[in-house]
């Protein structure tokens, strides 16, 4: 391993980080529109508005950057970066294909990912507090409470996958995958994906940014590029959660094609899950704040514990 190779991998991760969320965002525009009987963007770029998000990006880059008079300037300006960058690190360690097709394998893989993703919540609290806006503060607190509540089932479900594989390395988990993991880890997959969705504050779990109650939560006062960073972090988050669900529970690159095309499976499964994320957004109404919290603690956490028990018993039974 030399410096150039590593740098290339890092830049590749950055490129994926900047392009794939745009693809997901554009898919969301179109899928959501068609699910509501609309067409969605049709102009930018010519063919079915494919360049809409590029145009949005250009617009965001040119917009005035406003920091409210009462805000805590430094923290207000730093918050978008703090909430965005953790997802970049996750993308580096997600294995795409077999034989080392990964940005950089990290031994503590899954634990590294969960720890790094947990840092994003600080960015949202910073944004909520530094805006000097009641609605922002309330949104920030709601975000933090939601992120923490759903982090727990997510960690437990991920632990179940790690138990099944007997390793924390993401590559190792995919290598250990067999098709019968699908029924065995089904509850865990459900818990992980749902909790991931809630971590992203995507509808139906978008109470922290509920426009009818608290404007746009912690992001109310943001404009221009900083707001775009928050948006990007949401879509990068979709990519990360879908990719992680693929790797942990859906077998990553395993599929009825030769190993050399394994990366195709990973990407295909990731985008299929991203479609589900969009689908759920269009279909379901927003959960109320108390329902949101109750769902995490009284449904997802017990389910995750059941999955842990199931995984432990079956795994010990198999290995003896």
């Amino acid at each position: 391993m030399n410096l150039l190779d590593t740098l290339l991998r890092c830049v590749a991760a950055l490129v994926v980080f900047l392009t794939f969320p745009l693809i997901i965002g554009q898919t969301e525009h179109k899928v959501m529109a068609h699910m509501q009987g609309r067409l969605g963007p049709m102009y930018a770029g010519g063919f079915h508005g494919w360049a809409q998000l590029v145009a949005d990006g250009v617009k965001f880059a040119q917009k005035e950057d406003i920091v409210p008079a009462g805000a805590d300037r430094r923290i207000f300006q730093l918050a978008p970066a703090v909430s965005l960058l953790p997802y970049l690190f996750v993308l580096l360690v997600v294995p795409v294909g077999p034989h080392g097709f990964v940005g950089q394998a990290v031994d503590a893989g899954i634990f590294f990912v969960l720890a790094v993703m947990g840092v994003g919540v600080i960015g949202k609290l910073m944004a909520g507090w530094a805006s000097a806006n009641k609605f922002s503060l309330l949104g920030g607190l709601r975000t933090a409470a939601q992120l923490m509540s759903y982090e727990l089932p997510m960690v437990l479900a991920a632990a179940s996958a790690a138990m099944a594989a007997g390793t924390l390395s993401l590559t190792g988990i995919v290598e250990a995958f067999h098709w019968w993991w699908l029924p065995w880890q089904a509850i865990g997959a459900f818990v992980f994906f749902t909790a991931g969705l809630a971590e992203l504050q995507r509808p139906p779990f978008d109470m922290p940014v509920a426009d009818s109650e608290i404007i746009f939560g912690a992001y109310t006062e943001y404009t221009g590029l900083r707001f775009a960073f928050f948006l990007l972090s949401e879509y990068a988050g979709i990519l990360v959660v879908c990719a992680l669900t693929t790797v942990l529970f859906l077998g990553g690159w395993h599929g009825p094609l030769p190993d050399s095309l394994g990366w195709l499976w990973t990407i295909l499964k990731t985008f299929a899950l991203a479609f589900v994320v969009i689908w759920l957004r269009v279909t379901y109404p927003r959960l109320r704040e108390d329902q949101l919290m109750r769902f995490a603690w009284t449904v997802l956490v017990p389910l995750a514990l059941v999955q842990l028990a199931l995984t432990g018993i079956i795994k010990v039974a198999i290995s003896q």
Partner: protein
Amino acid sequence: MNILAAAGSLAPATRGFLSPTGAEIVFVLVGLAVLGAAVISVGTRQLVHAALWLVVALGGLAIEFLLLTAEFVAWVQVLIYLGSVVVLVLFGLMLTKAPIGRSPDADSGNRWVALLVALAAAGTLVTLVVDAFRTSWIDLGAGGGSASVTGASLFRNWVLPFEALSVLLLAALIGAIVLSRSRQAAAPKPRAGRLRTGKPVGAAPAAKSPAAQSPSSERES
């Protein structure tokens, strides 16, 4: 954690301190950054800034752990301290009144005493560590602090403390709930459903209707 055991015996120094490796240089630099962040965290008069500087200090510590090949501990540091303890602190600050800008009452009259105690504690620790290790060289094998090594040592040698920990956590949980409940018990119970509809709360349709629930969700903000 059993890093010392994992790394083998404390052999006398076979290497000099004057030809540091890259990791050692980074270790010292990050250590200085952590020290700086910690000092600012204690010294700043803005409450939330203090908590955020604590984030920097604790994150730096995680990097130090990584450099010492204590991989698992490093990410525990990030997940628990950055992801939840600091967030808990921030939460507490923001729920109580944490104004933007300086808090005039953030300074205590005891600060000189506090400084003295801090210096004494630091002096004791440094003396202890220096005296314990002297010039011995611990060769840190990569992977010596990985999760599997930690797990092996935890479940072979330290099962009882581990179980005791669960009792401790349970006690903390119950304590927290009792504390938060006792304050709520003093406040009058929400009776919006009864007042508004004129029916007893026990009447199932009234209690379940959105009208009966909405006051409670309004109260939340």
